């Protein structure tokens, strides 16, 4: 263990030192190759120009190399692998996609993912908005927001344990130590094994993600609400609008753009949801989702990379519209700069 700590510290020093050495050294080398000081006239101008051509690439070089290896190449490779067999050696055409169309597990996963997509972003945004509006009105709103924001720092696995403890079911005659079953028993209901109830268990898993992500929606929307010009609210009050009308007709339309951003961010997260399903049910009892199914195929029986890659492509296809929209928005905003 001591050796491990030592090697970790060693690596940090090497890694950071290496980065510093690279950036400093490469720039020094460039200055020496094309000196701009100590030379005069056209030589200096030419050298400055050459420096200007090379230096940006020294700056973006390392990032570009890592991005290429870890993201750009894999995207292309995954696409290619989805046309290959399980070992990734021979070309099988569209066989994996044909399998994808027929496989009941995959169909179940897509349906569940759609269910997640329909519920989680909407619930997070809605709850986040409500809490943002309410906490703005009270003196202890900041503390309340802090506490609701807190689950965002908790890992999905940690959150799964937290909620599994709430959903815990103990056999008849035993004391129910899970909060949910205890409450239900208190009101005369029948305790249930919540996470193995087909269909409804999806919602019990979704609650975990909603619990984590509502804080995110709340913070973003709260800052957007503060940006609303007060005159519009005052005018509405003078015109005799009630709080609900002010909320729906004055506030919400003005922060529509932010709502869209929150919604899409959570949508992408939902498409990738993996940890919660793995730890709570591992896809049993009809709760499978795409990301967990893919992980399953990556390692099941030595792994089937063709089918795994095909599932990854399905997730990617769902993300592409959001990606295009993001790039368009960014181009619009940074167009000048």
């Amino acid at each position: 263990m001591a050796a491990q700590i030592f090697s970790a510290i060693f690596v940090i020093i090497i890694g950071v030192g290496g980065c510093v050495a690279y950036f400093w050294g490469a720039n020094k080398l460039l200055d020496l190759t094309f000196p701009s000081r100590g030379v005069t006239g056209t030589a200096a101008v030419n050298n400055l120009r050459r420096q200007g051509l090379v230096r940006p690439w020294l700056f973006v070089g390392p990032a570009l190399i890592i991005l290429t290896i870890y993201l750009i190449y894999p995207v292309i490779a995954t696409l290619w692998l989805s046309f290959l067999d399980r070992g990734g050696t021979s070309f099988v055409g569209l066989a994996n996609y044909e399998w994808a169309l027929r496989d009941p597990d995959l169909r179940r996963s897509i349906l569940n993912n759609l269910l997640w997509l329909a519920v989680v972003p909407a619930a997070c945004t809605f709850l986040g908005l409500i809490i943002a509006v309410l906490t703005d009105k009270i003196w202890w709103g900041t503390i309340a927001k802090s506490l609701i924001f807190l689950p965002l720092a908790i890992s999905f696995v940690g959150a799964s344990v937290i909620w599994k403890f709430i959903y815990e079911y103990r056999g008849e005659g035993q004391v129910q130590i899970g909060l949910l079953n205890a409450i239900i028993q208190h009101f005369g209901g029948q305790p249930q094994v919540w996470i193995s109830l087909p269909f409804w268990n999806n919602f019990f898993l979704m609650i975990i993600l909603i619990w984590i992500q509502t804080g995110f929606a709340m913070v973003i929307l709260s800052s957007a609400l503060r940006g609303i010009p007060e005159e519009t609210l005052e005018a509405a009050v003078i015109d005799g609008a009630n709080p609900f009308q002010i909320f729906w007709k004055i506030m919400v339309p003005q922060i529509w753009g932010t709502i869209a951003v929150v919604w899409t961010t959570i949508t992408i997260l939902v498409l990738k949801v993996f940890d919660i399903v793995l730890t709570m049910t591992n896809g049993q009892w009809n709760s499978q989702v795409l990301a967990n199914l893919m992980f399953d195929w990556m390692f099941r029986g030595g792994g089937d990379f063709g089918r795994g890659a095909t599932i990854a492509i399905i997730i990617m296809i769902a993300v592409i519209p959001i990606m295009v929209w993001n790039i368009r928005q960014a181009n619009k905003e940074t167009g000048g700069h």
Partner: protein
Amino acid sequence: MAVATGKSFASRFGVHIAVLVFVAIWTIPTLGILVSSLRDKDQIVASGWWNSFASSSQTEAGRLPPSTAQTQKDGKYVLEGNIFGDGAKRNISAFGVKAAAPTQYPAGSSADLGDGVTLQVNADGSFVMTSPKAFEGDRGQRLYYASSAPPKFTTDNYQTVLFSEGIGRSFMNSLTVTIPATVIPILIAAFAAYALAWMRFPGRALLIAVIIGLLVVPLQMSLIPLLKLYNGVGTFFGVPSKTYLGIWLAHTGFGLPFAIYLLRSYIAGLPREIMESARIDGASDFEIFVKIVLPLSFPVLASFAIFQFLWVWNDLLVAMVFLGTAPDQIVLTAKLNALLGSRGGNWEILTTSAFITIIVPLIVFFSLQRYFVRGLLAGSVKGG
């Protein structure tokens, strides 16, 4: 938001109540595992954690032994024993024989059950049941009793999971993964962000578009090719394919698009005059970056560092693909997932391990919340 909508007392009161309910729902689950992790492991299963501060008094039901256990004494038939058997002793305050009146008789008193049958249950759980006639049937007398155990809090669970369940080792592994994977991307991203914000070169606009596109590419797209690549490199050089170096670089790669995006939008917003006056003074881009841009960018660097730290510390997927599951490599999240499988019902182990897993993020989060929120706002409200 100075306009107070709904000025009546009732509606203001309603807002307080509503927020209180939300806060309760959002904090009680975490409180549950914190409290449980400090409880005695027998008490965790004996009563709900919300009862843990009360000298937990609960009504339980049991059966006395069947008639086969009876003995004869002074011409009477007697059943004797202790309802707790050899288990943990608790204090009985009252008992009864009907479900409708489970605490009809105080402990120590003798209850008349009719037909000359008497039952005495003492506070320590010992009981004597006597009858002039022989007991019959193979099901013993139903018994209800109210028992109480004093609350017992302990740090034993923490000692157990840290030292015998391997959580302590996993904690070190998580730190080993997280710190380099947080530090390495910062420098690389900062240089790239500066170049993309303030230097002119062909292909810059395309590069920015690519990075914004990569921002949302699902991690899943990278896993299989990288797994193959790592296996290939491992075989080629005869080294293990699951290494700390591998996961540091993987986290660096996955974190870079967000890092560059976040840093670029901040650095691009720095005042142009500062850069230009430095340039006129003869400073090179490298000098401008190191002496002016880096110090000015501290807040955004801190924001990114917190994000990356939380993301890497909390990650399960990347760790499960690129690291082994042996004790020298398994990180906290993966270990917790493994414990859920192997220690499914041992809540003292699970709640304690979970709390150790989340304590570092919570500390980071609470102490640096300002930077975290700033990064969140800059990162998701595009151009904001």
